[in-house]
């Protein structure tokens, strides 16, 4: 069972309190009614599904109930960071030690 840091509650909480909510930073086109079938497919169906660092959404369903974003390594399932919904996509870099960190956080 994962341990997930909720950026609103400011602490690590057990996975059972959370619900995964799919890929993050998938922007709903505006105006959505104008987009083509291809654009709709890209928005609604196509997913990055990366092997490695993934940007994803979680909701602290049985906690503060907030949606938030996370960066997680889908191979190790380790979280690099979590941040509030609406915040800009954080940049990640891998150190010489191979460990991924938020850019600028250093070792």
């Amino acid at each position, binding site marked *: *069972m*994962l341990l997930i840091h909720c950026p609103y509650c400011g602490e690590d909480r057990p*996975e*059972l309190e959370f*619900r*995964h909510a*799919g*890929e993050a930073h998938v922007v709903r086109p505006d105006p959505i009614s104008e987009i083509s*079938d*291809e654009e*709709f*497919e*890209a928005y*609604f*169906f*196509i*997913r*990055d*599904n*990366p*092997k490695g660092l*993934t940007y*994803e959404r979680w909701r602290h369903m049985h906690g503060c109930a907030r949606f938030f974003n996370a960066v*997680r390594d*889908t*191979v*190790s*399932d380790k979280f690099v960071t979590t941040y509030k919904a609406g915040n800009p996509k954080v940049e990640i870099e891998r150190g010489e030690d191979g460990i991924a960190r938020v850019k600028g956080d250093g070792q």
Partner: protein
Amino acid sequence: MRKYSIFAVAREAMRGHRGWDKQWRSPEPKKSYDVIIVGAGGHGLGTAYYLAKEHGITNVAVIEKGWLGGGNTGRNTTIIRSNYLYDESAALYDHAVKLWDGLSQDLNYNVMYSPRGVMMLAHNVHDVQVFKRHIHANRLNGVDNEWLTPGEAKDYCPPLNISKTARYPVMGAALQRRGGTARHDAVAWGYARAASDLGVDIIQNCEVTGVRRGVNGAVEGVETSRGFIGARKVGVVAAGNTTTIMDMAGVRMPLESYPLQALVSEPVKPIFPCVVMSNTVHAYISQSDKGELVIGAGTDQYTSYSQTGGLHILSHTLDAICEMFPIFTRMRMLRSWGGIVDVTPDRSPILSKTPVPGLFVNCGWGTGGFKATPGSAHVFAHTIARDEPHAINAPFSLDRFRSGRLIDEAAAAAVAH
């Protein structure tokens, strides 16, 4: 190829089984092939086998980054059935069931296809409506699927608890008698042996690192950890790793990869005669020839390539098993494992040509790919050989996500109202 039979076994027994040859060759990769299949699971090996057997295309390589049959083929609960609702699904899965029946003889390899019946339990009025809809549709599609009363269900599976006081009493069941199980490793090995014998090169421990495309955009071959290997056609059959391979070819996919766990109990004498599935209580169970109870759990909620999931997922499944079969609480979990299942938005597979000439993809089987192995391999081989889909897999095209012509079995099962 040395024919397998009881006589051959007896003869070998006399001399300590020293006469058996390798089940498949382990050749060095050639410079190029007519067709390269990426992924040596059941679907991939089967595709190579049918390319050679049915289409005479024998200059084929199956490239595998690990060991053959080591992906979802070797990590599932081996359930086989074809009682799907939609015509498209029923046709595809029943095509597979027809091939399962006789596969051992076709491959001269005992895959232990065991049609002991798959029983799906209905626990509320809504389940009954949904299952009846399946049964009627299956009947008119020529697929066997019959309705059982709780009593009949109990007769068919004695350990089942049909007490009216159960949390979700059994209100009936849909039984497909041709459904059952098979020996997963044997499926991979049997296809590998037969394909290898027909000239197919199976290249293990060879990871695809790139897909090379020519000026016209068409496929020219694959870069691998063992160098470039040319090919006129490439079929990607990489399950959970499909997105990664397709990205190399510049094709973005409507896929997400989730961990799917399963477990077995310690072996016991025969106690469980069939396969039982329950969507409402959410678990499925059968007993292997070895005597282990084979129990499938759900996927974890997050995407992952770790082949590992949380104990709470297994726990949730065992809750359901012990609810339906209270006699099993004293049984022990012996072994658990995880696979990486690739799931499409409509939870139906993709067996399709792609925007890239010469590139074909077979993926998106989610949690139910094993049952389709022979059928999937058979029609995918046809698609690659003829450069056009077989009538059976035509509806499972990649472009359905643009048109909206989805094949959504789960959505058709709808939600409790």
